[in-house]
């Protein structure tokens, strides 16, 4: 764990700069969008879960996606990452269309997501969880598996990188335990560390702090901030307003599948529409709860 604490630190100045001059209106264009989506719709029967006219995510920033339960945040994650199909619309990552790409291909492009319900691979060890995420492994080919002398070096290098990440996420002491023996909060940490192991350009975190105790929340926040400072773009879903206002460079508000507002934390705090649609209901749903639906 690096000793410099990110807690309470202001977002790095450059990440503010990147969004300077962007007007806080839904669908606003960003100077250097890493992810773009247009006309994205997804319905389940008669229910339109997502109906996003236009959305851009600025590269190298922390963008929060907020909205009441059932607003369509997880569904939007799913359609953008190829885990669900969109009924209509287009999306592009780093300027290249994601049309028709399945989940694993989107991930290979560098857009890696986590899930609202944690997906630790419970009967693999913590270290195996990490190693699984490494890219381009020769030993992952069926024939290659029979030639360990070819991939042993690669495996050792991956192990070293995994070790460093586990150290950083304070999971190193658990490396040989099965992931099923971790606490809920540790599983969230593992899922994030594992996603980083796959060297993402952009990471999408669906409620990374749900059900995590306050101490771990603090360290998760530090990890997210330092990711951004290392150049990874972050889009995350969260309910806790203090958390969101504290670390986000930009906030996108979703309600009933539509983007009703976006802007810097200050813009959102004072946005009457947001207060009506979302902040007013906030007291009914504590941030840690409501993690039972979606994936």
């Amino acid at each position: 764990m690096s000793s410099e604490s990110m807690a309470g630190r202001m977002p790095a100045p450059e990440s503010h700069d990147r969004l300077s001059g962007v007007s806080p209106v839904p669908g606003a264009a960003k100077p250097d969008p890493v992810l773009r989506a247009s006309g994205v719709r997804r319905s389940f029967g008669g229910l339109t879960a997502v109906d996003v006219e236009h959305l851009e995510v600025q590269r190298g920033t922390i963008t929060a996606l907020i909205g009441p339960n059932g607003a369509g945040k997880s569904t939007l994650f799913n359609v953008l990452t190829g885990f669900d199909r969109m009924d209509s619309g287009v999306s592009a990552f780093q300027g290249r269309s994601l049309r028709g790409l399945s989940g694993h291909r989107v991930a290979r492009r560098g857009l890696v997501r986590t899930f609202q319900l944690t997906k630790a691979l419970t009967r693999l060890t913590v270290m195996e969880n990490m190693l699984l995420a490494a890219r381009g492994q020769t030993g992952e080919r069926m024939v290659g598996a029979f030639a360990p002398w070819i991939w042993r070096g690669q495996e050792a290098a991956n192990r070293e990188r995994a070790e460093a990440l586990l150290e950083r996420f304070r999971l190193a002491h658990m490396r040989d335990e099965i992931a099923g023996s971790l606490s809920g909060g540790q599983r969230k940490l593992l899922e994030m560390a594992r996603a980083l192991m796959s060297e993402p350009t952009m990471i999408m975190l669906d409620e990374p702090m749900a059900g995590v105790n306050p101490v771990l929340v603090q360290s998760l926040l530090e990890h997210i901030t330092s990711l951004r400072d290392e150049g990874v773009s972050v889009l995350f879903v969260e309910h806790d307003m203090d958390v969101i206002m504290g670390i986000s460079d930009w906030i996108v508000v979703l309600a009933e599948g539509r983007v009703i507002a976006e802007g810097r934390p200050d813009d959102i705090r004072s946005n009457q529409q947001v207060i009506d649609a979302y902040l007013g209901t906030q007291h009914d749903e504590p941030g840690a709860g409501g993690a039972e639906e979606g994936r």
Partner: protein
Amino acid sequence: MDFIQILAEATRTAIGPIAAIYALAAIGLNLHFGYTGLLNFGQVGFMLVGAYGVAVTTSTYELPLLLGVLVSIGCAFVLALLLGLPTLRLRADYLAISTIAVAEVGRLIYRSTVAQDITGGVYGLQQVAGDFYAWNPFPSGSYGIDAGAFSITFSARDVWVMTVAWAVVLLASLAMYVLTHSPWGRVIKGIREDEDAVRALGKNVFAYKMQSLVLGGVFGALAGALMAINQQTVHPDAFMPQVTFYLWAMLLLGGAGRTLGPVIGAIGMWFLLTMFDGLLRDVSAMGLLPGIAGGELGALRHAVVGLALVLLIVYRPQGLIGNRKEMLVNVK
């Protein structure tokens, strides 16, 4: 029969060719279910196409045995694609239902009159794999230990089949060990735990599931080929659905997700089956089972095995060599 004799007979079966054949098919099932999490309830279908691959090649067309083995492997490949292509993108239960149905439909096709010219229909095929016995290096005679009551002997023919069958089991186990301790094995184990998580890390889950289905199916087909070789006849009704359920019982008895689980399971299961058989026959001969005769003893044997399995699942759900901690990780 006294108890020592029963033990000898049980041991004989447990190390015999049939146990090896079941072990091999169960290794395939272990790759499917124990490592990849695929629910295959039609492993007998792979044994069917494997047995007929050899039988049709050597008996119907009188071609060499090794070609027959290649045909068996090819048929397993095709069957796996047939099962996997439409179902492996869907939820796990679709594969499960398809496997059980396709295996049974396959059996009905092989035994139909339409196929009779090739498969022999309901009569099956005889004089299969003569080549194999021509290659037998063991001089004829009796092999084994003969110590009075505890005597286990095999003919030279049996020893030859056993040698080859257990050698194939050994090779398959080695291959499984290498695969499951490689990054490839890590991916399929990850898929077993949660395929979406693995997909989110950029792995082509469908391709891995397909590879697993094919390789495990090939193990099943080789088991079928050995069955045809061992019996020198094939008959469609040897491939009823219960064969698959015996394989499952063996896998769970030994321990799924362990390299030697299916092997130990097959040996243990055949040992138990034969022992119960002998015991029941003894008890019945002593007149202690009034009203139960002949064929009913076989049914009773299955009931006893079923009871043993229930007790196993209650008291040792991980099987003989499984890891209890892993087994119970998701049980809260």
